[in-house]
């Protein structure tokens, strides 16, 4: 059975990818699952300078979901390149680096710094984090800006560039098309859906940041719908995810057109989920008589 797939030039031995921000820099679950055990790992968002992130509480559970308002806490690209990347490189993992910035210039600078680093196979452009004041959501919600940022980043790197789309938009297809026409090699979707939670006893929002990003099974129907829509509208490959908790969920994303799937929140509940999903996809393919992933990718599109 062949589980190989390709995200716009990023070759994966299997289609299960660790989503940004939910697997740190690859070694947080050592002993249970490592970066070499999965199709690829997307690192926690890296910014030009260190970011402190949002005040706590940063997490709230919601029905079949969770809100997070981490606020892109990270030590900055220099620490990433000197401390985290070398170890990842040694592991032989397929590493995709998620980058975020407050300005175009930051994205461009980050992309060129990362493009020359050894051991990186692709760049995921986080243009959709809803938790940052500047850049962040505003950026990912306008087709023009998405075009501009993808285009600028493409000019400074030879690495495959994969913008990660925000679901908090009226028309996801329009955004995806803008990304494609700017030369995006693949599209990653979806990031979290903006939400909030309230504590009725304290009469206060639960999150320190008031708003946070909703992830987990609750958003799966929304993510599936958006992948379905975008698959019909663009030709570049899609990394699909949002609420994947089982092989069944992952297969749903493949069927609506994702060439690979991302597992985020699910890892918190079952650290070995990504590996179990890979095995579950194999079982499914065997049961249905498929030998290659292309036989199921997009098969449910009417």
């Amino acid at each position, binding site marked *: 059975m062949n589980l190989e797939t390709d995200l716009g030039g990023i070759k994966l031995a299997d289609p299960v990818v660790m989503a940004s921000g939910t697997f740190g820099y690859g070694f*947080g679950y050592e*002993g249970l699952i490592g970066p070499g055990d999965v199709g690829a790992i997307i690192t926690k968002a890296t910014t030009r300078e260190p970011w402190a*992130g949002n005040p*706590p*509480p940063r*997490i709230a559970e919601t029905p079949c979901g969770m809100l997070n308002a981490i606020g892109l806490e990270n030590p900055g690209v220099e620490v990433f390149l000197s401390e985290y990347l070398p170890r990842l490189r040694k592991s032989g993992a397929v590493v995709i680096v998620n980058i975020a910035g407050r300005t175009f210039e930051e994205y461009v600078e980050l992309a060129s710094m990362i493009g020359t680093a050894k051991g990186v196979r692709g760049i995921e452009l986080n243009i959709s984090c809803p938790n940052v004041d500047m850049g962040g959501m505003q950026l990912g919600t306008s087709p023009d800006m998405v075009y501009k940022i993808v285009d600028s980043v493409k000019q400074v790197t030879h690495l495959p560039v994969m913008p990660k789309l925000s679901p908090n938009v009226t028309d996801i297809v329009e955004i995806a098309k803008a990304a494609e026409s700017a030369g995006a090699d693949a599209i990653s979707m979806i990031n979290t859906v903006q939400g909030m939670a309230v504590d009725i006893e304290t009469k206060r929002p639960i999150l320190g940041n008031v708003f946070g990003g909703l992830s*987990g*099974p609750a958003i799966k129907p929304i993510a599936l719908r958006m992948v379905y829509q975008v698959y019909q509208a663009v030709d570049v490959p899609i990394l699909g995810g949002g609420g994947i908790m089982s092989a069944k969920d992952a297969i749903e994303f493949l069927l609506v057109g994702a060439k690979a799937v991302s597992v985020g929140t699910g890892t918190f509940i079952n650290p070995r989920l990504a590996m179990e999903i890979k095995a579950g996809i194999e079982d499914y393919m065997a049961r249905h008589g498929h030998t290659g992933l292309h036989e199921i990718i997009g098969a449910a599109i009417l």
Partner: protein
Amino acid sequence: MFFLENAEIIRNDRVADGIYELECSASEIAGNGDPGQFVHMEVKPYSVESVSPLLRRPFSLYGVTREQGTISILYRIRGKGTSILAQVKPGEYLSVLGPLGRGFTLPAEGSATLLVGGGMGIAPLVYLADRLVRLSCDVNVLYGAETASELVALDKLQQEGAKCHIATMDGSRGYKGLVTDLLTCISEGEPTRMSTGKQACTDIVYSCGPLEMMAHVAKFAKERGIPGEVSLESYMACGVGVCLGCALRLRNGDASYAKVCSDGPVFSMAEVEFGAGEGEVRQ
């Protein structure tokens, strides 16, 4: 080093109104867990696949029996997760991730130690007391609860050989009032005769419980120059340091936050900013 074990529930007994003690087999965690560390438990009914409640729930190690490969936790029903947990029956299985976090720093053999616990905060201190007694320490526990029936860990503490000093809010057992009032009694030589004057004869203080309680204990320790540690809470997603969800601003921290799950849950009292409202209260 931590493990993911599919743990068989051995006991899950109601030990007081709304308070339960759960024991399960988890040999790796039992073999490696230290006092102050915690487990991150899946909470689901009937061992049936379920995505609600979604996240694991963190609980301190309350007891460990290495020989039998079992661990126990002590918990109070607070919301949906603990309500479901309280219904889980012996023979069912739950996935347990652990041991997680940084536990308590153990003192030199034979030290004089003071443990101050309130409510469910007693849980990690019970396991700690056990270890301290094995280290031939003098172990004094100030143990506070709402009412006598909630002093569910008392027998265990006494069996371990800890000296227990009780406070209940309703006076149904021991001193009537806050457990922290006992600190003053102690420092005034009454009623526990642990020390005389301002110089308490305690080498180290450990505390876990409501934030205000821990703040009070920290102040007490600071005034007397006694080192101390507290165990804190926070909402957690991963429990292992990858999600940055359990952030806590430390007193002398630089711009960045500490992670309760992996930099803690045990912190030096000196580090913690008790006024800041960060970290959750365990009651």
